[in-house]
């Protein structure tokens, strides 16, 4: 039975997390092995599910054998598979990187337990077909990530974690409130069934109110501009692998994915919502990059760029045209690649030199060739230089803007891209080129850190190939089709039961 793959996305990370906390403390090296094996298995299954989806179409899993409107369901459609591949691929590479990087912290097993809990939560959010179940997994991922931000337990980290926890909890409350209103209106929590009830009942003020709550809640989770204040504190404070995971995949699965799933598949994307998404996206795009320009802290600069790049993703999706949605989703995938790579680079630099201040680095190109070259690849990707992956997705978004006569947004996207380029010129100039200013005896980082950075850089280089017809039909097309179908989601899901 092929459906039995679906619950594995939740069972594997949760079981590995608790196994880690049970015996990871007692056996040295056990946490490394368990989490590497678990994340590799997840990455393998998610890549396999791409082919499975192509073969058998949308899959629905009935948890406990109860049919959907009554029981909880798990749904795997094009968008879910797309997100699962993104999540688990990055998670595997990050877990490999942590083997060496986390040596400097005590209690590695706590780190790995929380890390696997976050992965389990994110997979759960993505694969769940039930509104309240999605909220529960969202809380699992969010609460574990609050603890991870505070992992270093320094003054500054605890402060950032507290801020993140307070704002994240406010966001979760709004999401819960939105779910409560929708539940009271439709008397169901299953997303497909809810979409059907809403289609039957037509427009209503309460649905619009729930929509506003969702926009606030998930907007805060994905750090769109008026709700972004927690991100520049929280993301740099965490250990580098966690920063990579928070910026690379957490804000996308808890924020952007949930926005797409709820606004497109359940509530049905109206012109007002799309407009709102475009405004928020455009605003984040420009604000994020402007705030990043003045930063000298490497990780803080990257955190501000996350806000800006999420703006591109949301702008593309907010356009609502096939090309715009394709561009938005492709940029989501690309951003998770190059932003995790950049955070891993910053971690490698911190590991070797002990500083995050760009003014104190300099001349690392000769001493740390792997880190310097992979960071060059990532910088070129995020700035949108032609052969790299970021160029293609930004190009698609800009063309989609022009195609639907949104010239101002197209201009903003171009300006944002130029400012991003200038900001990363600064990183390269001060960090890796120029003459050395810091410690003299800087060495290249250990093997597993190098390996995961090289693998990410290779994927960054080759991800543009996903637009070729050969791969496009397998990966990007099912995802953008699933978004474009809107409330067709319910036909999909009810047909697959």
């Amino acid at each position: 039975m092929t459906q039995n793959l679906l619950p594995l996305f939740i069972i594997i990370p949760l079981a590995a997390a608790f196994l880690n906390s049970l015996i990871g403390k007692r056996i040295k090296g056990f946490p490394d092995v368990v989490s590497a094996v678990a994340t590799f298995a997840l990455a393998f299954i998610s890549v396999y599910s791409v082919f499975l989806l192509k073969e058998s179409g949308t899959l629905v899993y009935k948890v406990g054998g109860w049919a959907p409107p009554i029981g909880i369901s798990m749904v795997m459609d094009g968008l879910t598979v797309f997100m699962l591949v993104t999540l688990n691929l990055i998670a595997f590479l990050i877990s490999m990187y942590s083997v060496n990087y986390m040596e400097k912290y005590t209690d590695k097993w706590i780190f790995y337990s929380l890390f696997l809990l976050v992965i389990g939560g994110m997979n759960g959010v993505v694969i769940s077909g039930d509104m309240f179940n999605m909220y529960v997994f969202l809380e699992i991922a969010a609460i574990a990530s609050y603890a991870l931000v505070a992992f270093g337990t320094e003054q500054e980290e605890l402060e950032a974690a507290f801020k993140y926890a307070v704002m994240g909890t406010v966001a979760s409350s709004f999401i819960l409130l939105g779910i409560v209103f929708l539940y009271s209106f439709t008397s169901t929590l299953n997303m497909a069934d809810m979409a059907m009830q809403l289609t039957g009942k037509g427009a209503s003020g309460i649905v619009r109110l729930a929509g506003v709550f969702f926009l606030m809640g998930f907007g805060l989770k994905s750090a769109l501009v008026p709700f972004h204040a927690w991100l520049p504190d929280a993301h740099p404070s965490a250990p580098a692998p966690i920063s990579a995971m928070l910026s690379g995949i957490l804000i996308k699965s808890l924020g952007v994915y949930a926005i797409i799933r709820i606004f497109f598949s359940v509530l049905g994307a109206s012109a007002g919502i799309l407009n709102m998404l475009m405004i928020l996206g455009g605003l984040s795009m420009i604000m994020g990059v402007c705030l990043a320009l003045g930063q000298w802290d490497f990780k803080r600069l990257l955190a501000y760029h996350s806000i800006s790049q999420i703006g591109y993703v949301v702008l593309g999706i907010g356009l609502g045209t096939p090309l715009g949605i394709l561009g938005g989703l492709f940029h989501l995938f690309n951003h998770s690649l190059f932003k995790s790579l950049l955070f891993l680079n910053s971690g490698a630099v911190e590991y070797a030199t002990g500083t995050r201040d760009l003014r104190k680095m300099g001349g690392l190109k000769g001493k740390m060739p792997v880190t310097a070259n992979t960071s060059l690849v990532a910088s070129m990707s995020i700035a949108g230089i032609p052969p790299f992956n970021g160029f293609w997705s930004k190009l698609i978004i800009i063309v989609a803007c022009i195609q639907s006569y949104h010239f101002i947004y197209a201009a903003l996207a171009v300006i944002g891209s130029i400012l991003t380029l200038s900001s990363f010129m600064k990183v390269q100039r001060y960090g890796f080129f120029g003459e050395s200013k810091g410690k003299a005896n800087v060495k290249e980082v250990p093997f597993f850190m190098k390996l995961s950075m090289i693998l990410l850089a290779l994927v960054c280089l080759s991800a543009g190939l996903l637009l070729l017809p050969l791969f496009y039909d397998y990966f990007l097309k099912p995802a953008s089709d699933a978004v474009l179908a809107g409330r067709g989601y319910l036909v999909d899901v009810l047909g697959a039961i």
Partner: protein
Amino acid sequence: MDDPKKGMTLIVKTITRLTVGLILLFGIYIVSHGHVSPGGGFAGGVIISLSFIHIMLAFGEEAAFKKVNQGIASLFESFGAILFITIAAIGMGSGYFFLNFLRKGEPFKLFSSGLIPLYNIAISFKVASGLFMIVILLMLLKIPKKGEKQ
């Protein structure tokens, strides 16, 4: 346990000594009857952990740690979680994740409703030890202020 300098007054200690066993038993009752009456793994787990917290408040931390220390609590917490997910995953053997494959028995009897009592027990392990650990942390952990040495 009877160090007069630690913990609260003699009255509190005497009352605690009389009631703490009852509280523990009541917690176990709530857990085991979770599927036939109000309550369940979470509520029962909270009551079980309260009995240990009660000892800690009345007699001081050392007395409570003699019964359950952090290591054991942590072990039970992980064990509860892994027990829960294992029971859920065993259901996959007969078809579905979380499938209740045992005989359901007669309604309103103690031994009925298949796997649900087992889930309740797993949850009570997790909740009881988790809550106990939280209280320990709140009592023991002090974060130094800026400039102050730990």
